[in-house]
Structures are given as structure tokens and as C-alpha cells.
């Protein structure tokens, strides 16, 4: 439906986006996940038509949109701090996009009411937007984005400024709305929880490129690089060197990753140890270390060892105790490209 092809863009002389390509299918929600400053917001603004790419194409059902001004694209964009019009009331903010489409007044009133109802704000329609709380402003912004029935929805870190409880609540509502509307959506965030909760597909952006894409389960199950594993917080990422016997020497100890890569001796590799795969006692991959820190985390204890590795254990151990830890699986990560 929407095809983004080979987008390039630089910011103040430094390359920001270097050949971004992806496709969105009808009804699909994709999340652009990346560190702040990775250019994901810029990509969104390029798709919206607020900025021009230096190279590449944005196509909608085969039609190239580069050169089409933002107001003729009919893409909805919700901004990070909502960008509500301070001189207009709640209802007038929501009605803005409808007025631009020259829809008759009675129809506008009807659809504004409908949109406000959708976000549970019907009672506030006459209020000034400057008098609203953060969560309420967020809902008005959402209603304003939805009201003109755009053919594509885009969200630029829309929950970033809210506190945790409110964020979770709005995330759930947003999920339902996105699901019900059936409109394809692009959601930009640096928060993986948000991404996992909302996305059908996740695109990881790093160094101006898409380093990995897939469902949340695919992305977390098989991180495509050491950077991805670190960014998603999947566990301990250890750099090591392959020994002649095929095992890998790391700063924490010698490990034997299950991988069919056929590394040559002397090659450097990155290993991933998921903290949940650790067990106390002997095993195939075994590390001996002393306990440095223990933190209670409801379902498990997070134990940090003196060799830098952290693991999750169901039982408490004491600081200073020497432990022998084995791992069910040590993964070998593909090299950073």
C-alpha cells in the first residue's frame, strides 16, 4: 500500500537516513524503533510531506508522492507534544481537518462528536485546549488526527510525555482504535514496550538504516545484530574470540555457543546470554564467579556477578558467595554490518 524506497536524508551535513526501504500493507501497524536522534521522526516527516528526501521515493498504491505537498496527501500525523491549536476550542481543533475538506457544517458537527466519543472526551468539547491535562490533550490530538479519516496514520512518540499508568491505559485504547479503524499506521517510538504492544511489524533503525524487521516475537527471538540485542535489552552481549577448539573466549569465561556458523579460529564474535536461561550448577556452558549484587524483582532475583554478567534466579543468593552458573543456551549473534 505504502512503499518507502531508498530514502536518503542528511542533517547539517551528516547523513541521517541512508537508504530506508519498507512496505506497509493494508491494516498493518508498523513500529519504527530506534534510539533518539536515529532519524525516525525525520522519516515520518518525509512520509508526511513536511520535509523533502534527498533521494528516494514514497509511493502510495504505486503513485509517487514526492513533490505532493503535505496538505494534499491525506496522511494523519500526530505530533510528540500534540501541537494543539491554542486559539481553538477542543471541538474546533478536532473540526480543523474536516473544515479543510470543505465538509458541510452539520456533517462536521456529527463527525467531531463521533471522534470525541471515540476517545471518551465528549464532555470537554467546548473547553480551551490550554486548560486540559496532558492525557486529555493527547486524546484531543488523537481525535483530531482520526477525524478527517486519513488513509494512513502516523504517530511520533505520542505517549512520550505521559506518566507510566496513563501511558499504559492510552496504549491499550490506541491498540483498539488502530485495530478497529483498519487504517495502516506507522508508529515511531524509542520505547520497546510500546512497540511490542502495538506493532504487527517492528522496524529497527540504526545508523540511518533498517537493521532488522519482523514481528515482535521474531525480532526478540532472533536479534539480527549485537546492537539489536543490546538496544532491545535482551541480555548480556559478550564480545569474544574463537579459539582453535571452536569454543569462544570472552572476558567472563569460555563459552560454547550453539551455532552452525563455522567460525574460523581467531575470529571475533558477539554472544548473547539471556538472563532467564541461567541455572545454578554444572552444565555445558559454565561460568564461575562471585555474586556482586542481588536485586529483588517480584518474579525473580536479578543477580549481578563480578565478571559483569547478570542473570535471573528464582532463589536468593548472598553477596560474596561463589557460584557456578550454567546456561541452557548461548546464542551467537550475526556480525554488525
Amino acid at each position, binding site marked *: 500500500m505504502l512503499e518507502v524506497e531508498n530514502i536518503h536524508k542528511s542533517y547539517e551535513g551528516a547523513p541521517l537516513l541512508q537508504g530506508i526501504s519498507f512496505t506497509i500493507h493494508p491494516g498493518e501497524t508498523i513500529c519504527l524503533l530506534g534510539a533518539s536522534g536515529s532519524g525516525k521522526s525525520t522519516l515520518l516527516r518525509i512520509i508526511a510531506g513536511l520535509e523533502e528526501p534527498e533521494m528516494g521515493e514514497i509511493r502510495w498504491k504505486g503513485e509517487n508522492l514526492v513533490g505532493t505537498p503535505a496538505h494534499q496527501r491525506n496522511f494523519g500525523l500526530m*505530533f510528540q507534544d500534540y501541537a494543539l*491549536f491554542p*486559539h481553538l476550542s477542543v471541538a474546533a481543533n478536532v473540526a480543523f481537518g474536516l473544515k479543510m475538506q470543505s465538509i458541510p457544517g452539520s456533517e462536521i458537527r456529527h463527525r467531531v462528536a463521533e471522534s470525541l466519543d471515540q476517545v471518551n472526551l465528549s464532555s470537554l468539547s467546548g473547553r480551551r485546549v490550554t486548560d486540559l491535562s496532558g492525557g486529555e490533550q493527547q486524546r484531543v490530538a488523537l481525535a483530531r488526527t482520526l477525524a478527517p479519516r486519513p488513509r494512513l496514520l502516523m504517530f511520533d512518540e505520542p505517549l512520550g510525555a505521559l506518566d507510566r499508568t496513563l501511558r499504559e491505559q492510552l496504549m491499550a485504547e490506541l491498540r483498539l482504535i488502530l485495530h478497529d479503524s483498519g487504517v495502516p499506521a506507522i508508529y515511531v517510538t524509542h520505547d520497546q514496550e510500546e512497540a511490542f504492544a502495538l506493532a504487527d511489524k517492528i522496524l529497527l533503525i540504526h545508523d540511518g538504516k533498517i537493521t532488522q524487521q519482523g514481528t515482535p516475537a521474531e525480532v526478540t527471538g532472533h536479534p539480527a545484530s549485537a546492537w539489536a540485542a543490546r538496544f532491545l535489552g535482551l541480555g548480556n552481549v559478550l564480545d569474544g574470540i574463537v579459539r582453535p577448539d571452536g569454543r569462544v573466549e570472552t572476558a567472563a569465561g569460555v563459552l560454547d555457543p550453539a551455532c552452525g556458523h563455522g567460525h574460523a579460529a581467531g575470529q571475533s564474535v558477539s554472544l548473547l546470554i539471556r538472563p532467564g536461561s541461567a541455572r545454578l550448577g554444572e552444565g555445558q556452558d559454565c561460568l564461575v564467579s562471585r555474586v556482586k549484587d542481588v536485586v529483588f524483582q517480584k518474579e525473580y532475583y536479578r543477580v549481578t556477578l563480578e565478571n559483569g554478567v547478570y542473570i535471573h534466579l528464582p532463589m536468593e543468593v548472598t553477596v560474596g558467595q561463589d557460584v557456578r552458573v550454567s546456561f541452557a543456551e548461548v546464542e551467537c549473534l550475526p556480525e554488525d554490518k
Partner: protein
Amino acid sequence: MTIRFRKTKNQRVSESANQRISEPQSRQIAESLHRRIAESLNRRIADSLNRRIFLWLPASLFLGFLFFYPLARILGLSLNVESFTEGNIRIAFSTLRFTFYQAFLSTLLTLLLGLPAAYLFARFEFRGKSLLRTLTAIPFMLPTVVVAAGFNALLGPRGWLNLALMRWFRLEDPPLLLVGTLGAILMAHVFYNTTIVIRLVGNAQTHLDPRLEQAARCLGASPRRVFWNVTLPLVRPSILAAALLVFLFDFTSFGVILLLGGSQFTTLEVEIYIQALHLLNLPLAALLSLIQLLCTLAFSIIYSRVVVRNVVSAAPRPAQVNLRRAKKFPERIFKAGMTVLLVTFFVFPLIAIPMRSVSRLEAARAERGEVQSGLTAAYYQELFINRQGSIFYIPPIRAVVNSLAYAGLTVVLSLALAFPVAMALKRPGSLERFLDPFLMLPLGASAVTLGLGFIISFGRMLTSPLMVPLAHTLIALPFVIRTLQPALASIPDRLRQAATVLGASPLRAWFAVDWPIVARATLSGAVFAFTVSLGEFGATMLVSRPEFPTIPMAIYRFLSQPGGLNYGQAMAMATILMFLTILSILLIERLRLPGTGEF
């Protein structure tokens, strides 16, 4: 000592509280304790009230005697049967009509230049931008006589433009008669006030969240509709505020009209001056003053309403977000055109004065008809000579000495009056909140009105040259208070306490914490008073003695006399005044910038 004493007292109280005593006894003790606390509190309040009254006394007496009493006299005189004659009312009405008319036209033209300029400054980044912004701000701080002299030096019968045209086309008489027309007045007003529009509207535009416009575009608004539905409504209050302020300044303009307009154009201000000093019709002058005051009051009320509304709708953003370089062709044309226009309009009147003051461009006195041209220092040398039959009976340079003396006195007086008030305003109580607005009232009355009040109230004492610095102090005082007050209030008690805890004696703590701030604020206030006094024209024209002229008066007299020599001397004087003023402005700017100088 005091600390130890208090400790023992506290101990005693706590000891007695610890002893088990019968209930009525303890209630008695509690009551007496309460009473004692209440008494000491009352005493402290009374002390501070006395202290406060004492702090307020000098300024209150000064304002009461020199502002409120004269104002009451004006009121008394104007609300008299004899001031409401048919002739008076007719003059008042036609003057009022012209005052409104020229202020309206001036405001319109100022917006015409100021709005695009504000857009230029708010949206584009280009080389020399801050310089250009400073340039547009200079006129606002210059004395009116200097601005008038500048336009005269550029467009007057002896100005650069006419001299050039006369030479090129070999004309006998200056072809452009701009000085003495409404056009000259309007141009000078635009020159003066454009910076207000650039400041207020430009600020509002700079701090406009660019994402509001982007959001509108994503919602389907074309660039034209973005402007009408989003940008304009958000900037409108600032445009209104700027327009009102410009109108107010144009409405009360005096020097520009008197010097550039000639006799046929009289605004309320000029008419008050003429009626009071030349026609000696004080009742009419008082009536005009009253009208003037009422109008100013009305504008101020409207303005404060607009400003309040302006504050509500702003959602400020960091300024850089909106700035970009002009890229598209129409943008670059706009940028280049505006820059050239602004530079031309603001530079030429300013450099015309010093250049004219050192150029001999016409026939000298003795050699009629023969044009000598070239650089000369003659006009400056002439300032030191007391010529027979010249318009002064003293060497004209004495005007500079007079001005400096008056300015010095004004500085001392206004600091002496402002300091106690600023101290009292440091922690404003109900007394301060009640009295503070009265301090600012002289700002609302025009300088000419203040002068008229002096004439009506102290007609006999006007022979004293002391009246001039008193009038100047009246005008400078609100500014000086507003300079000192925030500085004094900003001194954090906790810093002084921190210094004390670290072992500084009270005196050393004061020197370490208070002194740097106080010294800087005092100097800043002093320069402010100095500048105001140096350039003051309206009140000075009414209260000063002809034998003790100030620089602005000397310029005015030179300009209104015929002859190239007088003209050259006017330019020399204006140059001196201009440089003194610019020097002061730079000094104030330096003092205001944080992090510069010793702190």
C-alpha cells in the same frame, strides 16, 4: 551573642514545658507566651511599617509636590468656565483631529514596514542579522531632536538629497520640500517606532510552535489557509499590542512634529506648548493637557487588556526552531529586498548628521553664490566662539556644559529618590502594592504636560535653572526605580546566609553578595537617568531659561535659524548628542548582559 541568648531562652521554655504542672497553670503560661509572641510580632510589624514609610517619604514628597500638585492645578485650570470658550473648543477639536489623523497614518505606515521586517527577523537566518536588528533599534533610543536633525540632514532644504539634486541639475533652489510636510513627520515616526513592531510581532512569531503550522498542513490546510487559520490568529494579539503602542507614541509625539512639521501642523503636544509659551493661553493649554491625559489613559487600558490576552495564548518554543536560511527564489528576493530597504531607511538618516557636520557644501557667509565644498571642522570650532549677533549670548558649547550639569544633577536626584523606594519594594507589602502604581503615573503624562504643570504651579520660580533637573528627574524616576527594583529584589538572602555560615562577617557577606549586584544596578540606573536627561526636549522647552540652553534646545534654535553656519552647528551639536546617547546605550547594554564584567 544574640544566638546564644535565644538558645538559653528556648531551653528555659522547653524546660518549663517538661515540668509537670497543673493544667490551669500550663494554660496560663501558654496564654502569656502567646501574648508575648503577638506583642513582639506587632512591634516588628510596626517597626517595619515605620521603616517603610520612611523609605517611601522622599519619593512621595517629590512626586506629590512636583507631579500630583501640578496635575491638580492643570485639572483645576482646565475644568474652569473660562477654558471652555468657543474658540478654545474649536482649537482643541481640530488639534485632536489632526493628532489622531497623523498617529493613525503613522501607525499604519509603521506596520507596513514593521510586519514584513518582523517576518524577516523571525523566520530567516542570514549574515549580519543581529547588526541589522540593532540598527533598527537605535532610533527608538535616540533623542527626538537627533532624529529630526537626521531627517533634516537627509531630506531638508540643506540636506544631502537636495544638495545632490541641486548640483546635478544645476538648480538655484532645493527641489524637494519635504521638511515641513506631513510626509516628513510620518517618515520620522516610522523611523522611530518600527523597532516596536519588530520586537513584539517578531517575538511572537519566533516563539510560535512550527509544529502547529505543520499539524495544520497534515490536516489538509493549504499554505494560504495555514496562514489565515493558524499563523495569523496566533500572532494577531501581538500585532494589536504593537499597533497600540506605536499609536500611543505617535499620539504623544512632540519634538518630531515641532522640528519637522513646521507651523501648520500642531498635535495636542505642540499646541499645548504654543498656547502656554507663545500665546500665554494657559486655560486652553490645561484643557488640551486634560484631553491628552484622558486619551493616554484610554490607550493604556486597552493596551493592558490586549497584552493580558496575548499572554494566555502563547505556547513558547525555543527560538531556533523557526529559523532557516532563505532558499527558494521568492524568499531570497524578499530577504534581499527587505535588507536593502531597512539598511537604507535606518542608516542614511543616522550617518547624514555626522557627515553633514563636517562637510561644507554651500556658499559660506562672505562669499555669496560661490560654492565651496569639502571637509571642515569649522562648525565644531564655531561652537566655542561667542559671536556678536549670534542667537546665543554665550559660546554655544556652553549648552553641552549645561546639559552635562543637568544630567549629573538628574542622576544624583533620581538615584537618591529611587533607592529607598526600591528597598521598600524588595518585599512588597500592602503599602507597596498600593503605592507602586502611583510611582509609574508620570510615565502616562507627556513631558509637555509635566512642563505645563510646572509653569502653572511654580511660574515665579521658573527663573531658577534648577527646575530643569527637577523635571528631568520626574521623567527619569520611574525608569530608574524599575531598573533598581528587580536587581535589589533578585539578591538572594540564602547566598548571604551561606556566606555568613562559611564565616564571613555581615559586612564582608554584604560586599561579597549584595555589592556586585547593587553596584551594577546603580550604574545602570544612573546611565539611564543621564540619557533621559541628555535628550529630554518636551519638558525642557517649557521650563528652561533661554540663557541656560541644553543641547536639544541649542539644536532646535540652530535649526530654526537661517544660514549655513547655523545649520552646520546644529549638525555638530546633534552629532555630539547622538554619540553621547549611543555611548550610554552601549553602556547600559553591557551592564545588563549577565556574565560580562566583574561579578
